[in-house]
């Protein structure tokens, strides 16, 4: 097996007593105190995550916007300066190469935050498609990413950033100085809570991570690992590449229609149009297993009226709901909200109610 890579925060994770796990080629914290405790910290107060494994691609110059318009499903041309959005990169068949967030940093400057496992693939895909001659740089190695997520996040950072982080709207981003460190901050996240993602120079990451824990002491803010990241995103109904998304899956099947802007001729658009007219081959559903004694996990089979209808793509015990939840794909004819499917858990078929996503939605002030 290849040696796992380490983020600039690896030493700190060990010091904090993290249980480590291999993820996308990186040695990452799975949990510190415990997945449920960390999960609750983010739902009720705030949590700090190391996401430095994720990839950062810079796309700049006059060709940047036209290139992104052509290779991504959401219209990068619609982004105002200092705005960000979720988008997908597709192949010609409409299959998903990656899902990502695009941040517009300058008039001709974009930052793409991509999945760790797809960083190289995404970069190469952009490079090959780049007939607009945009400047492309893979900045992943020198960039650290720290997320500070939870209802108390904005309040806790109020006195520590210039200009004020709290002034950033949801899905807005700006360069600023936080704890005396220059960073590029965005009000984005993957937890279903308010919060920030902070792009930093690798060397500055430990200082910022420690400072976040320090200011967070007032509210028992916790360092959080990939375990809580997964339970949080699942409750929030957010897709995870490699589970709900892959090159065999289109954004329409994944119920991500709102991130697809048709009529621009982007790569994969023709395939999506054909699928929209001909009908989806599969569809993502939320599932609530009714026997709340066992968890439907990735790969478990789904049945409708006795025939196999699909598979679970993600499943966990949802700490906020206190019950198991799952997401999975089914083939047509599609079940609707309130219908009952069966999920096979260790040879036993258990009823699961179809529900709309997300499972959890935060209450907004």
């Amino acid at each position, binding site marked *: 097996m290849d040696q796992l890579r380490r983020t600039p925060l690896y030493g700190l994770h060990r010091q904090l007593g993290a249980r480590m796990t291999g993820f996308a080629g990186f040695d990452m914290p799975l949990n510190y105190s415990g*997945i449920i405790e960390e999960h609750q910290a983010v739902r009720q107060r705030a949590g700090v995550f190391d996401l430095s494994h994720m990839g950062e691609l810079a796309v700049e110059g006059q060709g940047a916007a036209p290139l992104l318009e052509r290779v991504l499903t959401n219209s990068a041309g619609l982004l105002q300066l200092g705005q960000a959005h979720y988008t997908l990169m597709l192949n010609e068949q409409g299959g998903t190469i990656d899902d990502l967030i695009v941040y517009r940093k300058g008039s001709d400057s974009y930052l793409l935050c991509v999945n760790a496992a797809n960083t190289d693939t995404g970069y190469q895909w952009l490079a090959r498609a780049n007939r607009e001659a945009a400047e492309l740089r893979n900045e992943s190695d020198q960039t650290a990413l720290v997320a500070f997520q939870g209802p108390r996040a904005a309040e806790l950072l109020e006195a520590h950033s210039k200009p004020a982080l709290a002034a950033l709207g949801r899905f807005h981003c700006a360069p600023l100085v936080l704890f005396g460190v220059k960073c590029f901050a965005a009000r984005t996240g993957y937890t279903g809570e308010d919060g920030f993602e902070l792009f930093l120079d690798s060397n500055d990451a430990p200082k910022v991570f420690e400072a976040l824990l320090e200011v967070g002491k007032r509210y028992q803010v916790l360092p959080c690992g990939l375990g809580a990241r997964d339970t949080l995103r699942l409750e929030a109904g957010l897709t995870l590449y490699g589970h709900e998304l892959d090159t065999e899956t289109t954004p329409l099947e994944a119920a991500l229609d709102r991130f697809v802007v048709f009529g621009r001729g982007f790569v994969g658009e023709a395939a999506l149009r054909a699928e929209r007219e001909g009908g989806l081959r599969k569809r993502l559903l939320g599932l609530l297993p009714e026997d709340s004694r066992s968890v439907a996990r990735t790969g478990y089979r789904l049945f409708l009226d006795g025939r196999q209808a699909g598979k679970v793509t993600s499943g966990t015990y949802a700490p906020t709901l206190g019950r198991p939840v799952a997401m999975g794909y089914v083939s047509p004819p599609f079940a609707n909200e309130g219908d009952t499917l069966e999920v096979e858990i260790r040879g036993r078929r258990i009823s699961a109610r179809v529900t709309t996503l997300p499972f959890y939605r935060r209450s907004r002030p």
Partner: protein
Amino acid sequence: MEVLAGLKYSKEHEWVALEGQIATIGITDQAQDRLGEIVYVELPGVGKKISKDDPFGIIESVKAASDIYAPVSGTVVEVNEDLPESPQVINEDPYGDGWLIKVRISDASELDDLMGDKEYEEMVAREQE
């Protein structure tokens, strides 16, 4: 990590406490720590026969579902009734209130295949290398 003297241990990280012909079975501190927060437990009913080295139940943590293997063979005479309601007791007190089942053993010589506390500690240390 806590390992208690006087108990027998299996390679699969279960412990056994024998009193007469009745063996109380649970998972070790090391096992509960590895699994993480336990959310569900599936155990056999009273009267069910279990066979050494075969799975007799399932423990689900947030992370994963794991089989529990029988360290000895026998017939289940008692099941920890508190676990369905509060499975986290296994995390909090794996050698005490977090016990799983009691069985009437069918072959006392099977105990000889299990490890003592020192031997188990050494195995855990080797696994962590």
